[in-house]
C-alpha cells in the first residue's frame, strides 16, 4: 500500500522576502513510497531534497499531485496531516526558551483539546518515552537555551516522536550530533521502523548512515530524481557517482581505510 504518491510535483523555495528570486527546486518529480519502507533521499547541496520533503508535507506551495494515504494533500487540514506525518525540519533559532519537557509536550498538540489543553496521563507517558528514546530523560527540566546543539536536536526529535505518527520525516536528523549519539539514534530509528506500518523518510548527508537505515534510496540532482531503487541495486550502479559527480563509494572506502593497509 502506498503511503505517499507524487505525480509531476513541482515546488519552489520562496525567498522573495530576502530579495532572492524564487527558484524552482523540485522540477516535475513522480514517485511512490510504500507503507513500512525506509527511504533515504540523497543528493548534493541545492539538489532539492529539503524542498521535496517540504512539498510532500504541504509546507511549501507546490503544483502537481501529492496523495497522503490516498488522499490529496491539499484537501487535508494541517491537523490531519500531523496525525499521519511527523516532520523534523532543520533547526532555526530558538528565541523564547521552554524546558525540554514542555517542548516535547508540544508534539502532543493534536491530541490536546479544551481552552487550557492540559496534558493527559497518556501525554505525559508518551513524552517520557520519547525523552528516554533520545536519551534526554535526565535533562527534561532543563531550558532549551542551556542545551548544546546536539541536545537541542534531540529535544526536537523527541517532540517529533511524541506525535506518534506512522510516518516520520527527518531532515538531516544527525546534524550537530556526536558519533555515539548518532549511533544510538540510528539504532533507535531502525527499531522504530521495524514496527509494521512505520515509514521513515529522511534526508541525509551522511551516506553510510543512510545506507544503514534505508530500504530504498532516492537520488536527487538539480531538482530531479536521478534514481529511486533498492539500495543494493543503487550501490551496484553508477547513479551515486552521477549524483555527486565523484566516486562516492571509493571515497567512503578510503575514509574507512585511510592507510590502505588491508
Amino acid at each position, binding site marked *: 500500500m502506498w503511503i505517499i504518491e507524487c505525480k509531476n510535483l513541482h515546488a519552489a523555495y*520562496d525567498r*522573495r*522576502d*530576502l530579495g532572492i528570486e524564487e527558484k524552482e527546486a523540485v522540477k516535475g518529480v513522480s514517485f511512490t513510497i510504500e507503507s513500512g519502507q525506509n527511504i533515504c533521499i540523497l543528493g548534493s547541496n541545492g539538489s532539492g531534497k529539503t524542498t521535496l520533503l*517540504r512539498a510532500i*508535507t504541504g*509546507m*511549501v*506551495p507546490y503544483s502537481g499531485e501529492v496523495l497522503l494515504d490516498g488522499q490529496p494533500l491539499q484537501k487535508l*487540514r*494541517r*491537523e490531519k*496531516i*500531523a*496525525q499521519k506525518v*511527523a*516532520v*523534523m*525540519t*532543520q*533547526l*532555526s*533559532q*530558538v*528565541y*523564547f*526558551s*521552554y*524546558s525540554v519537557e*514542555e517542548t516535547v509536550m*508540544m*508534539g502532543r*498538540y*493534536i491530541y*490536546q483539546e479544551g*481552552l*487550557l*489543553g492540559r496534558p493527559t496521563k497518556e501525554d505525559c507517558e508518551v513524552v517520557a518515552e520519547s525523552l528516554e528514546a533520545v536519551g534526554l530523560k535526565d535533562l527534561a527540566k532543563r*531550558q*532549551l*537555551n*542551556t*542545551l548544546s*546543539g546536539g541536545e*537541542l*536536536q534531540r529535544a*526536537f526529535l523527541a*517532540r*517529533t516522536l511524541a*506525535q506518534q505518527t506512522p510516518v516520520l520525516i527527518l531532515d538531516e536528523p544527525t*546534524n*550537530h550530533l556526536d558519533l555515539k549519539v548518532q549511533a544510538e539514534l540510528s539504532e533507535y530509528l531502525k527499531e522504530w521502523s521495524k514496527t509494521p506500518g512505520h515509514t521513515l523518510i529522511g534526508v541525509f548527508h551522511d551516506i553510510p548512515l543512510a545506507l544503514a537505515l534505508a530500504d530504498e534510496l532516492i537520488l536527487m540532482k538539480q531538482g530531479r530524481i536521478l534514481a529511486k531503487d533498492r539500495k543494493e541495486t543503487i550501490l551496484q550502479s553508477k547513479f551515486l557517482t552521477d549524483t555527486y559527480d565523484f566516486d562516492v563509494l571509493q571515497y567512503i572506502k578510503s575514509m574507512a581505510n585511510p592507510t590502505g593497509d588491508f
Partner: protein
Amino acid sequence: MKTTTKAGVVLALSLGVLVACMGIGSVNIPIPDMLTIIKAKITAATIPTNVTPSYVSILWDIRMPRAITAFMVGALLSVSGVIMQSLLQNPLASSYTLGVSSGAALGVALVVVLNITIPVVGFFLLPLAGFIFGLGTVLLVIGVARRLDTSLKNQTIILMGMVFSLFVNAVLTMVSAMFSQHIQRLTLWQMGSFSGRRWTHAGLLAVVALTGFVLVMRYHRELDLMSFGEEQSMAVGVDTKQTKKRLLLLASFLTGVAVCFTGIIGFVDLTIPHVTRRIFGSKHRLVLPMSAVLGGGFLAFADLLSRTVLSPREIPVGAVTALVGAPFFLYLYFMGRKGDASCG
C-alpha cells in the same frame, strides 16, 4: 520560588499600585475612607458623614476610572505585545512595528483637523477613527506583504510594517504642519494621557479587555508553537496561516482600542512581555494572564508618576513609559542576548 507564589506577588503588587493610584495625588485619601466610599457606591448606600465629601468625587469620578483605564490599557498593550513577539519570533516586535499606532494617530489627526463630527458616535469618534485607521494600516501591511511573499514570512511583515509606519508618520507630520492650530493637541495625543477618563472609558475597556483576553487564551498553545517558527508549528499540526492572521487581527484590535482611548503609549508592549517571560518562563498559558496583570500595574504606576512627579503639572504618560521603558528594555535586550539559544 514557586509559580503560584510569583503570581501571588505580581497580583499583590499590581493591586497595591491600583490602591496607590486611587489614594495618592494632590489630595491623599486614606485607605479606610476609600473602602467606605467604594462599598457605599457599590451598594448604593449613603456615604457616611465622617468621610470628607470632596473625597467621594475625587475617588469615584476621577481617580478610580482613570486608574482602571490605565490598568486595562496596560493589560491590552502587553497582551498584544506578547502575541506580536511570539508570532514574529522577534523580541523587538510590537504593534508599533506593524504600524497600528501610526495608523491610529493619523486617523485621530484627520478627525481633529477636518473637524469631523458624527452625532450618533459622539465622543467615541476619535477612538473609533484611531481603531479603524490602525486596523486599516495593519491590514494593508499584511495585504501588501502577502502579495510580495505568499507564505507571509516574518521578515516581510516586519519590513512592510516599518515602511508603512514611516510613510504614515510622514503624512501625519504633513497634516500637523498644514493645520498648525491643532499641533498642540495632536502632539499631546501622540504622547498618551489618561487625563479626564471616566467610567464610560473604563467600562468599555474592561469589556474589550476581558473578551479579548478569553479569545487570545484560546490560542495559548498555538502561540507556544508559533514562537518556534511557522515551519515548526505547521509540523505539529497548526494551521499556521489562519492562526497567524486571526492573532494578528486580534492583537491589532486590542492595541487599536487601547491607543484610541489614550493616545500612543510606547514600550509597554515591548518591555512587559520580556519581564513576564523572565519571571514565569515562556508558556503562554501563564505569560498571557501574567503580562496582562504586570502590564496593567506598570501602566497604572506610570500614570501615577505622570500626574504626581511635577504636580500640579501632568507629564504625558507615554513620556514616562518611554523614560522608564527604553533603558530597561535596552538592558533586558542586551543581557538577554547572552542567554538566547541559537543553533543551525
